[in-house]
């Protein structure tokens, strides 16, 4: 591939995103899709159409628009199932977010299956949402938490994975890609090794499902969690995937309407999958919007999206690293890295960098990125992070570089 040439054409793609179509003096340079993506009109329209044309509650109505709403909601579930290659839509639970999905696992499966003396293995590159639920569970149960170390290049060690798992290891929970380092972990191999030792695996795919193929059957994970809002979909809708036989044996998470088959004064029977885990009125518009987001992603092609981001990331890595006084964290090989770059400018705090970039209308994130154990490991209080998606182009990277030069100018570096 010629350097700088892109698989997708962001100029055309941007026309689908209202936020980039506003008449503004300075173009919006949005480099924070790892926090949340922008949304195309198709997603916004799908949600609006539900509210305007067939707004009603799902599952219980006999009238036409409720049937329509139910069908649209369940169709969205089928789209998610196909997108991650689940065996059945029953394995797709709609939740609020990655965070809620992981809490659901720890509160139900975890409470039943983790006992005193057991251990849960995490990695040093986890997002707080894949640390704290396990920390609290382990405290409650008298189990212990273990962490796989991140090496200087931002990688985990498979040997350490093997040596950290013993016959009391019930679970390995790890992120498919680090939201700080960008490292793409060898998930399939890690899952195989964990299964060899008898542990189940939770895969946090918040940073990969939006950007590359995440095939749950090929990966063979037991649970997977991701968020709609990072994949062009609405906020407030997330996905828990789990193998059907595991879900069958799990206790419900929340109790109430929709998740029951029948209720008597002192007993209740749970609904079938997946509704057993969806108590109360769900985020109907959110699910429908997520379905539209998946259609949009499929229209572009997930492999094309990955290739596009790889090209942008590769160019950005080269350019950022060539600036004197910049430290880039994580793998140097763009094949091993998701579409994001965390860095620091020597002598400048990440927040100051982000504030000055903001004056150039460049949106990047600064802080600990909800990964404080990793920050401790890196020995920095914060990093600045630029992250990319389908609508980013080479000019965005040029603006980032220009902004970094401006920061150095302000601080007279």
């Amino acid at each position, binding site marked *: 591939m010629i350097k700088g040439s892109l698989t997708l054409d962001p100029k055309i793609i941007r026309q689908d995103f209202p936020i980039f179509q506003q008449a503004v003096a300075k173009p919006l340079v949005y480099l924070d899709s790892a926090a949340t993506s922008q949304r195309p009109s198709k997603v916004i329209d799908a949600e609006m159409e539900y509210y305007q044309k067939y707004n009603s509650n799902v599952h219980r109505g006999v009238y036409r628009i409720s049937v329509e709403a139910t069908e649209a909601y369940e169709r969205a579930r089928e789209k998610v199932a196909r997108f991650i290659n689940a065996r059945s839509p029953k394995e797709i639970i709609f939740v609020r977010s990655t965070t809620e999905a992981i809490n659901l696992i720890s509160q139900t499966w975890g409470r039943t299956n983790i006992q005193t003396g057991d251990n849960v293995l995490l990695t040093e590159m986890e997002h707080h949402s894949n640390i704290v639920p396990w920390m609290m569970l382990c405290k409650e149960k008298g189990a212990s938490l273990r962490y796989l170390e991140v090496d200087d290049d931002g990688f985990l060690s498979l040997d350490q994975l093997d040596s950290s798992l013993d016959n009391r290891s019930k679970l390995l929970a790890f992120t498919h890609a680090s939201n700080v380092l960008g490292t793409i972990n060898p998930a399939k191999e890690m899952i195989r090794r964990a299964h060899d030792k008898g542990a189940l695996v939770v895969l946090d795919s918040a940073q990969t499902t939006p950007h590359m193929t995440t095939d749950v059957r090929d990966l063979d994970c037991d649970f997977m969690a991701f968020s709609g809002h990072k994949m062009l979909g609405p906020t407030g809708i997330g996905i828990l995937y789990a193998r059907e036989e595991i879900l069958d044996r799990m206790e419900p998470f929340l109790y109430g309407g929709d998740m029951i088959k029948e209720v008597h004064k002192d007993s209740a029977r749970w609904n079938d999958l997946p509704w057993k885990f969806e108590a109360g009125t769900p985020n109907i518009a959110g699910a429908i919007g997520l379905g539209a987001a998946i259609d949009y992603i499929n229209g572009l092609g997930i492999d094309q999206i990955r290739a596009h981001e790889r090209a942008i990331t590769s160019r950005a890595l080269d350019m950022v690293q060539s600036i004197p006084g910049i430290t880039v964290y994580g793998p140097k090989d763009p094949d091993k890295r998701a579409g994001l770059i965390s860095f620091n400018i020597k002598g400048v705090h990440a*927040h*100051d960098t982000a504030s*000055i970039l903001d*004056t150039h209308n460049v949106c990047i994130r600064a*802080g600990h990125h909800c990964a404080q154990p990793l920050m401790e490991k890196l020995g920095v*209080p914060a990093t600045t992070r630029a992250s990319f998606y389908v609508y980013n182009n080479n000019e965005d990277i040029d603006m980032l570089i220009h902004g970094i030069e*401006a920061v150095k100018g*302000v601080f007279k570096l």
Partner: protein
Amino acid sequence: MSEDLYKEIILDYYKNPRNYGTLENPDMKAMDTNPLCGDELEMQIKLGESDKIADIRFNGKGCAISMASASILTEMVQGKKIEDARQFNKEELLGAMGTPNLGPVRIKCALLPLKVLKLAIYSHLGKVLEGDDRNL
């Protein structure tokens, strides 16, 4: 807006912090973090005659705004009576920094040192933050 936030005075105090460090056996001290970025700041104070601030030091990591604010604040309250330091308000500090319009996010960085100073004073007085100080 924020490029001129980084005025000479801020950059100067950031690069050459005043009163940075620690004290031996301080009479008062407090620590807090900025939840937005996790930055930590500690202040230590030694009292002199008639409850005046004889020596004050801060330490921690932070952005230019919070580090400059800490330096400027420590200079401003040095020699003040505890009660006067307790009444020192954020407008005085922001005025001295030359940055009255920081915006809702970055103002938290500027005010963290003031909050830590107040925490030290209130806890020395055996009280919890009261009035406007609760909103710092």
